[in-house]
């Protein structure tokens, strides 16, 4: 009985030390939510390697009081440049008004958390920290609680109509030791629609939470190319609640990054709701260490809903990919159509893929399935391409793109999907030969 006590004590110490290094904000409409989040964090503590959902990803880099210094990728090539959009820029976690567009868009209310939080009353008061709190069961997500308690910056977005153009949150990093905490709150009102682009690396170490409430019949599209900083340490949490007949779609592209953990908790809460979440991750250990973790939880609590999880990873030179994905179908969530696929392509013998695709089902009239495959490039397909004259390196690149195609297909807008493919091609081209 002595060993676990020591573990608990160590966990408490780590949590305390981490919190001591943060200047916690006070006052404003978020104050009660922050206090609750702090209490939650106190109870659960920061994660340890022995925790079930951290068995393959060591939380040490996130637990450390200070971030490791990481070279900034200041010249990160822009993406979605040609698209008409409204851009909001954060540099090292601080809003850059000069680099941003005027935040005026018909049918969309946009506010900065740091400014809005001076007031006691705000539409976001009921939502800030709420989805994060409900997303803490059954699995604790301590870094999200930490984020709710400590974030001072972020965007509050309320959409009441069909946004004429996408909103673009663009992150930049210029400091080698920036430790960024951002908390965004998004509410898509009944029947409204928004496309949100989220690009780049927020800081040397970053912790980003986005809470998205999609009301009845509303639609939310999220496309997130996570920047190419190789030294990046990043944890993100996407909490969403999808109401009746509403649609939630999120796609993440990860290239490079020594540590990325993308968590998503999606409550499919209204009858007839749709939730799709997809990710494509490419890591080449030659550029620096690469560890990428997708931890996804889809929670079906309504009738006649559909969910899809499509996650693909391409790994090389000692890169590690982790996928932990779960579909929960609660009692009564009949006619659920839940699908999950996690696949990885190991380009050499050093890389590894670790996966735990889970189903937890308490309703009988459902169609749920998952698949997971791991292996090398299909030699037959490679030969077919080469026999048509395509050089080996090009053929491999083409097959990698084809491997990722199902994930990219989850991006509805063809132009935006094209931009993502172009970025992928670019990434592959630089690693050819």
């Amino acid at each position, binding site marked *: *009985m002595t060993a*676990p006590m020591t573990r608990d004590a160590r966990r408490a110490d780590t949590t305390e030390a981490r919190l001591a290094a943060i200047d916690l904000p006070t006052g404003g409409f978020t104050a009660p939510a922050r206090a609750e989040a702090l209490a939650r964090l106190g109870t659960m503590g920061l994660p340890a390697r022995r925790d*079930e959902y951290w068995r393959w990803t060591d939380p040490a880099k996130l637990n450390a009081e200070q971030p490791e210094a990481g070279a900034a990728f200041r010249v990160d090539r822009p993406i979605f440049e040609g698209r008409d959009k409204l851009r909001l820029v954060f540099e090292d976690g601080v809003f850059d008004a000069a680099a941003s567009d005027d935040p005026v868009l018909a049918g969309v209310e946009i506010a900065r958390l740091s400014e809005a939080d001076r007031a006691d009353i705000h539409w976001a008061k009921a939502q800030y920290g709420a989805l994060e709190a409900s997303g803490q*069961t*059954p699995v604790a997500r301590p870094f999200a609680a930490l984020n709710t308690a400590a974030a001072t910056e972020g965007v509050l977005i309320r959409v009441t109509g069909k946004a004429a153009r996408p909103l673009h949150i663009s992150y930049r990093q210029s400091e080698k030791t920036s430790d960024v905490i951002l908390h965004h709150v998004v509410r898509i009102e009944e029947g409204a629609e928004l496309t949100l682009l989220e690009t780049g690396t927020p800081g040397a170490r970053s912790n980003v939470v986005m809470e998205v409430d999609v009301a009845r019949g509303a639609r939310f599209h999220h496309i997130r190319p996570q920047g190419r900083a190789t030294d990046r340490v990043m944890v993100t949490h996407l909490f969403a609640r999808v109401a009746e007949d509403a649609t939630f779609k999120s796609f993440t592209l990860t290239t490079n990054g020594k540590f990325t953990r993308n968590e998503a908790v999606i409550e499919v809460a209204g009858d007839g709701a749709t939730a799709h979440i997809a990710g494509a991750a490419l890591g080449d250990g030659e550029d620096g260490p690469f560890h990428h973790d997708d931890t996804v939880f889809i929670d079906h*609590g309504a009738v006649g809903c559909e969910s899809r999880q499509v996650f693909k990873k391409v790994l090389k030179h000692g890169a590690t990919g982790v996928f932990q994905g779960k579909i*929960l179908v*609660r*009692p*009564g969530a*009949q006619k659920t159509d839940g699908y999950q696929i996690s696949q*990885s392509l*190991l*380009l*050499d*013998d050093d*890389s*590894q*893929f*670790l*996966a*735990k*695709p*889970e*189903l*937890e*089902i*308490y*309703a*009988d*009239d*459902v*169609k*749920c*399935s*998952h*698949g*997971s*495959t*791991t*292996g*090398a490039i299909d030699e037959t397909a490679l030969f077919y391409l080469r026999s048509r004259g395509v050089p080996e390196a090009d053929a491999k690149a083409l097959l990698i793109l084809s491997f990722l195609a199902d994930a990219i297909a989850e991006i509805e807008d063809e132009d935006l999907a094209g931009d993502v493919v172009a970025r992928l091609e670019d990434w592959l081209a630089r690693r050819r030969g």
Partner: protein
Amino acid sequence: MRKGSEHMKIERENTMAQGHDTAAELEVREGVDRETVETVQNMGAYKYGWETEIEMEFAPMGVNEDIVRLISEKNGEPQWMTDWRLAAFARWKEMEEPRWAMLNYPEIDYQSQYYYAKPKSMAEKPKSLEEVDPKLLATYEKLGIPLKEQMILAGVEGAENAPAEGRKVAVDAVFDSVSVGTTFKEELKKAGVIFCSISEAIREHPDLVRKYLGSVVPQSDNFFATLNSAVFSDGSFVYIPPNTRCPMELSTYFRINAENTGQFERTLIIADKGSYVSYLEGCTAPKRDTAQLHAAVVEIVILEDAEVKYSTVQNWFPGDEEGKGGIYNFVTKRADCRGDRAKVMWTQVETGSAITWKYPSCILRGEASQGEFYSIAIANNMQQADTGTKMIHLGKNSRSRIVSKGISAGRAQNTYRGLVTMHPKAKNSRNYTQCDSLLIGDRCGAHTVPYIEVKNNSSRVEHEATTSKVDDDQLFYCRSRGMDEEEAVALVVNGFCREVLQALPMEFAMEAQSLVAISLEGSVG
């Protein structure tokens, strides 16, 4: 799962026990599986739920070093074995009961169990069937063990020479804590096969036991295995010499009879180079309204080019419809394919037990070694099962295949939990996993928790899982041909399990098929 369980609780309270009409009339139509239909027709509740009143010799309740010593002494064990047990017990005291499985059961009081129980009539060997405690004989008869084998199991002198009936299956029966007899010993001996109780093996073949015991499931492998290492009372031992095909199937029947008695049997199978054996295991227990503990360990060592098939039909008492009583079944089974091209096949039909915690595993150490796992797990009423396998690929060109069929009915929870690991050195290896779950009714749960770790790229791992309910079209088709709903469900479920049933030896497959139907009794309606 806070929200989920609250929701479920409400559902439970709202649900009244629904009446159910058993079809009185039976018409077997063309193409209908007669076996299944008849079974459904004859369906009572748990068939093996009787208890035999036999005078027992118990050790004092609870477990401590003295009890461990007593068990060792009763079995006439040498000092090294006693020391081994005591070392395990010392470790066990430091361990915590694992709680990661999706199982919900009240805390087990390890001190309110008996760890040793033996029929008193075993003290002296009976001379003929007349002298055998008739209740013991009746027990075997009810278990469906043939007469001659009943005699042998009862320890009747000279029974080996009596004529055998039907097919030859050598049986070792374990009644509560002790092996009560092994059949066909002489015939096996001619082939060089050793098949006896583990207690006898410890006395008669100490070199083999010392070399292999604990080499697959180490003494302190996990909480339940460690407890077993300390207190196991008996079990079976098998040694197949090199290049020998075991002349008959070997079988063990486990029976828990006494109340408040834990059963801790230990099985050790060694298949030497180039040998083959098929091993069957069956288990039953009487109906009681208090839960009983069962924590067994099975170790299998498979050397170069050898093959072992291990089939289980687990039919421990599952508890009543309200979840009262039943066996808590915590089992550690592991096969070590130590030599190149060694092969193991686990087949299990898990229909009994209130709680099942069981992961028959394969360590694929040898090059081109093979592991297979075929499983049917049925959980009805308030049963909970958390079962699956581990395929640890260490050797090059190793292969594994997992086919798991889980069926949940009533308010049961059924979880597949598995691990597939491709070690960096296990180049060119393959795994294919198929996990299907079937839900019958909207109050049960079906869960899948696979762990996949791939650490080289020349290996290929494929995992597929599906969850669905019994197909309405199939049910309707059967019913339109005259079957009632329960028969139809049993038939469709048997179809769903076909791939696993086919992996079983013939007699077992028949038994398993009827068991599928029996287990689902009361699940429709």
